[in-house]
């Protein structure tokens, strides 16, 4: 094993100049993508596999959620199987604050909706922020009672919330007679993004406008994560991930630090959810189910747990497969005469990806240095707050008293 100072030296000198150049090139490529997509699609062989601009929007939204999930799963090492709850919370915030759903009132603030329309219409830009804050609060409320649980129990509790929230929105059309979520029909239409008369949805280059906004949001998310990674908080997360007991002994406040990771992860989920709701102009309960949480988790695992660039890569790959890739591949297979539809088995394919990655390359496509060491040398993951501290079989370090 390399010493800490050696590792730190490698981290500091890790080819920063080259990294910046690559990042800058990728950003430029991302920004001009809508302009070159058509010429790319004309290319022989690979042309059919180039995603359309509006598919790219969806891919980026899911990547953004995966990056948010990575804060929880990768940085702090807390397995969250209910991330879809934050996605739903964000989408429904947009539904409440930027649509005609609450027709009892009429409130308009800087929005693209016509003046005097029934319902609450707040500018989508503001709604993005409000959704993020609201989801953060939801995340803290979920996190506070549950984050003291051990890893696998925490996973189950988050899964529970991930199941409760969608059922709540599905059944929420008469809570004490009040229609909060419009039940199975969902809330639609949701206002477009835009400024004043410049409404994205009615412009001819609607997809491009949403695309650039999505790129901006993803860049913002990535920027936050880069800054967080080496911050005081980020280092505290790593400490907790590697050895909770030691971290606590060194004075890392466990609950506060964990709750922060949960809250920040939730924030990005909420913003992404609200943005996506505006893009497809609706929040529908059928979109929010357990498989989405696993889909996002699969992105994180494929790319590399805790590895920001890896998660972006994993997110784009799986997002692409989900929105277009599998269908394209399926049509190619069927042209070849085989009757096989991969979209039907998409979650089985994600399952195979998860298992294969965990067995053969658990650190992901672009491993994070620190995480690779953890995988090779193991971590001390029997935490202080063991749920079985009352004395059952998992409590191995204790004598049989």
């Amino acid at each position: 094993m390399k010493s800490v100072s050696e590792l730190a030296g490698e981290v500091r000198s890790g080819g920063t100049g080259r990294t910046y150049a690559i990042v800058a090139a990728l950003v430029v490529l991302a920004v001009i993508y809508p302009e070159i997509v058509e010429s790319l699609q004309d290319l022989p062989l690979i042309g059919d596999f180039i995603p359309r601009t509006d598919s790219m929007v969806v891919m980026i939204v899911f990547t953004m959620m995966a990056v948010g999930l990575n804060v929880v799963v990768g940085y702090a090492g807390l397995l969250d199987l209910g991330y879809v709850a934050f996605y739903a919370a964000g989408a429904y915030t947009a539904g409440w604050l930027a649509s005609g759903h609450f027709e009892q009132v009429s409130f308009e603030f800087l929005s693209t909706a016509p003046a005097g329309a029934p319902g609450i219409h707040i500018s989508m830009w503001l709604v993005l922020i409000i959704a993020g804050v609201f989801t953060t609060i939801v995340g803290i409320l979920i996190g506070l009672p549950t984050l003291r649980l051990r890893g696998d129990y925490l996973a189950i509790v988050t899964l529970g919330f991930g199941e409760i929230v969608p059922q709540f929105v599905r059944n929420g059309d008469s809570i004490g007679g009040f229609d909060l979520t419009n039940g199975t029909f969902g809330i639609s239409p949701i206002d477009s993004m835009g400024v004043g008369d410049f409404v994205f949805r009615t412009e001819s280059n609607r997809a491009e406008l949403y695309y650039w906004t999505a790129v901006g949001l993803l860049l913002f998310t990535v920027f936050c994560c880069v800054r967080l990674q080496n911050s005081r908080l980020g280092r505290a997360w790593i400490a907790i991930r590697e050895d909770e007991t030691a971290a606590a002994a060194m004075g890392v406040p466990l609950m506060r630090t964990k709750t922060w990771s949960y809250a920040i992860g939730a924030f990005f989920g909420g913003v992404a959810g609200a943005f996506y709701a505006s893009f497809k102009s609706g929040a529908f309960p059928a979109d929010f189910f357990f498989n989405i949480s696993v889909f996002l988790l699969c992105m994180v695992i494929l790319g590399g747990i805790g590895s920001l660039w890896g998660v972006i890569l994993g997110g784009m790959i799986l997002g692409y497969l989900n929105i277009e890739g599998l269908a394209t591949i399926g049509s190619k297979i069927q042209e070849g005469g085989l009757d096989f539809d991969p979209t039907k088995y998409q979650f089985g394919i994600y399952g195979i990806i998860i298992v294969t990655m965990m067995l053969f390359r658990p650190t992901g496509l672009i491993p994070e240095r620190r995480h690779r060491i953890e995988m090779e040398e193991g971590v001390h993951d029997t935490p202080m707050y063991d749920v079985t501290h009352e004395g059952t079989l998992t409590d191995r370090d204790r004598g049989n008293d």
Partner: protein
Amino acid sequence: MASALARLRASSVTDKIGLSLVGLLIFWLAVNFVKDPTEFVNVGLIGLTNGSIYGVVALGYTLVYGILQLINFAHGDVFALSGLFASTIIVSVLGLDTDSSVPVIVGGMLLTLVVVMSLFSIVNATIERVAYKPLRHAPRLAPLITAIGVSFIVQNVALAFYGVNFRSVPNFIPTSDVIDIGGITYTWKKLTAILIVVPLLLLLTWFVRTTRQGKAMRAVAQDREASAMMGIDVNRTISVTFMIAGALAGAAGIVYLLQFNMRYDTGFELGLIAFTAAVLGGIGNLTGAVLGAIIIGLIQAFNEGLTWLAPGSDWTRTIVFGILILILVFRPEGLLGERTPEGA
């Protein structure tokens, strides 16, 4: 016992909240009982039957958790696949139908049980060998994540073979009443579930308590390293545990199939219910798993069947997960969690 009493005296605020929630639940049940006692008992019997089926699935979770500290997500999907496979045997291979004679039905059911249980014990042990064994020394979350992946794979295998339609078997077990006392009824069909489940539980208890292999399982669950040093073949023991869990999943699949219809994703929801039951009873504890399952079965039946202030089936999932979260927050060791593991 003394420590339990001391803990009761020193009950914290969370304990009081938890107790008052239980109190509210009991009050609600009491009001419903007074309003319509017959209906209450009937609904309770349904809950008991369903609970016993959940119990068999929950045992699979609790056995594996006891020995590996792994939440085997794939267990629910193995259960669903086994039920679907049983429907093939019953309908296509054996051709049991409503006009089959009683010996044929009994023999056919026994044959199905044997075939499905042995096949799925092998399937489950294979899953362990391929997917979980290489990760035995990895960080704790690695096998859990893998289990989620396996769960999706098994689910899609079921989807590939059986499509998206619900499967069921003909009503060859009579739906006539076994007992009918003043409106309280219990059908033969439900009794079949009990007739299969109870002997299985007795067999399992006997196996874990008295056989060499059962003792080895208990030892490995308590301390894997020490067991290995004492000459217990840990790998073999873990394989046997997975085989038993798989056989239980197979049996549960058949019993479930006789009562309800099922399709490829039945196992996901039922698996979560069963897991909740295992946690409620105290995960790792065999008696606890069955007790928890019966409580969950009753709660579900009361929620869906009672008339006074019952939220109804739309909210079942929310209630079950709400219970799960409340237990993990208020009493993470479960109802019987303080006892020695593996029911001994």
